[in-house]
């Protein structure tokens, strides 16, 4: 999975915000891994209705 945010751009913003090196490392590592499916945490954004047909 591709990273959601350009790592270089994100790193610059983290530096500008004075983020601690420990947090910076974790955030960049997570971003680099891409977005996981939201089976944990809050991720449901909307519902799409399914046509289940009949039996």
């Amino acid at each position, binding site marked *: 999975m591709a990273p959601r945010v350009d790592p270089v751009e994100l790193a610059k913003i983290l530096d500008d915000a004075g983020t601690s090196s420990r947090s910076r490392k974790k955030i960049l590592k997570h971003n680099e891994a891409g977005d996981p499916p939201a089976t944990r*945490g809050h991720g449901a954004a909307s519902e*799409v209705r399914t046509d*289940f*047909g009949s039996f």
Partner: protein
Amino acid sequence: MELREIKEAIEKIDRASYPVYFDELLDLAQDIMLKEPLPPVAEEAPATPNTQIIEKFGVLGLRSAYELYTDNEFLLDIAASYPTAPEEQGGNRPILVDSPMRIADKFSDGYDLNTVRRVEQFGKRIIEESYSLLGDEADKNVELFKTGTEENERAAISWLTDKIKSLTETSSGEPAENGEYDYNPLRLSPKYIEALGVEKLPPTCLGVSIIASSFFEKAGADYLHAGVMKSGYESQKIATTHALLGLVERLEADPAMSDMVDRVLDKAREIYRDAVKNRGYHAAVYYKGHGDMWNIYDVNYDSIGGNSQTVSDAVEDVYKILDFHKHDAPSLEMSAHTDYVTIQSIVLRVLDAGPDTFGFTPGQIASVAKDIYNHVGPREELAKKVLDDYLVPMIKKLMKDDNFSRFKPIIKHFIYTDYGLELLLNATKLTIDRQVLHGEKDDELHERLASDREYSARRLEDIRHIPAYFAANVAMCELSEPVLWSAHHAAVEFGRPHSRVGFAVLNDVAVNYGSELTPSFWLNNWGSLVPTTEHLGREVHTDEERDRRHKMLMWHFSRSLNYIKNDAIIEKYLIDTKEKSPEED
């Protein structure tokens, strides 16, 4: 040193390390979320008459005590069915069957009020900082909302909804290619969303709920942050599953119907699996508006305002309890049914009522069979005849039945509107094509009817079951394309916004970035049902902690007010790990 002693020592170290682990998580969460770090919480939380009790039983213990008698009939049935075990039997008592406080004793071992207050402070700050995402016109609309008139409130809410939609229209609200939703905790952060833009970091549902909270916070409104345990659509899916099982009960009495029973059961399983599928947690907001009515505010699901008085009253009851405990248990959460009658639940009642209430007489069976056997031409014409001549009169008769007359306004939507009749016609077509004629063309049908007596007899059995098939198909059709109204959420847990937002964000950071905090930390301090499954994979070190968690899982199973996906997660966990309570060993 024995193994047990080693485990206890590890748990003690864990407990002693909580402040360090918590600080690590909060530091990371602050780095992600906040523009400025939080100041220290200066004072110790003042004691109240309830402090000692809550510290002993934990916030979920408090919740279980409150909800024992408001939650569900199932729980009360269990309580009634078990004898109260003698005290000396200790751990062998069946859980959940005696006093509320006994239940609380089983799955929690503390409440750290000072830590909870730091989480509250964190949540409050996130909400405040998120306000800037609403832009320059926010203040004007907050003032409009504060006037309290119905018209102004509606205008302000309409503006808020348009504004939030403009922030999320590029979000991954639609399913990604793999059918799942993707997620990045940076999408909660007002400072990174501002820095990188909503195109790159569109707010998630939790982010949206926080932005909406910032509006109500600024307006000084009474509002609650909510976890959606069962959406309206999920409620409809579950009711459809039950309706199909009701159909199975009718068919099972007829041995010739065994193949059809299998087909209906397969469909019921398919819909149930979809209903309980893990799609992540969803957050929403409820605010008190004009006329002191509690309104839902959920932009993601297009559910804005319009709660019934019954739902509003249920939210008000929860609000009063949460407000009562705002000093001694600010992270308490309480759940409520916010359900409404659906056509699927009416179908279930119809099927349960049996063929005397909704079925053909022998004369009607013969008459319908004649119509079907003699028909030549488009099936739609045949379906319309069966619907108009037989099924609609039965539905009208149903409205005069004392057991169904209260559903008259809903049933009328189906027989007196074009869109309702279209759905009924589709359900009739499905019934005739799929369940009666099994896809046979007219020529094949007539040939077989003339030459195969067994085939003719089976078709007659199917015709006898047309009303039941039709009812189930109505439930199925309405599930795909609702003709009634948009579905508000059916079951929700509520928390005070500062605490719930703080914990929800910390939880999301913990599960995505990792945290050393063990399940007990979450279960003791956050009154939500979210952490039960979120931290299920974490190792626990002692029998006591395992026992508490096991009781917690069983408590979940006994509840109707639960996150719909949690039961499936817990069941899989128990099967995979073969985890049992130490009492059962």
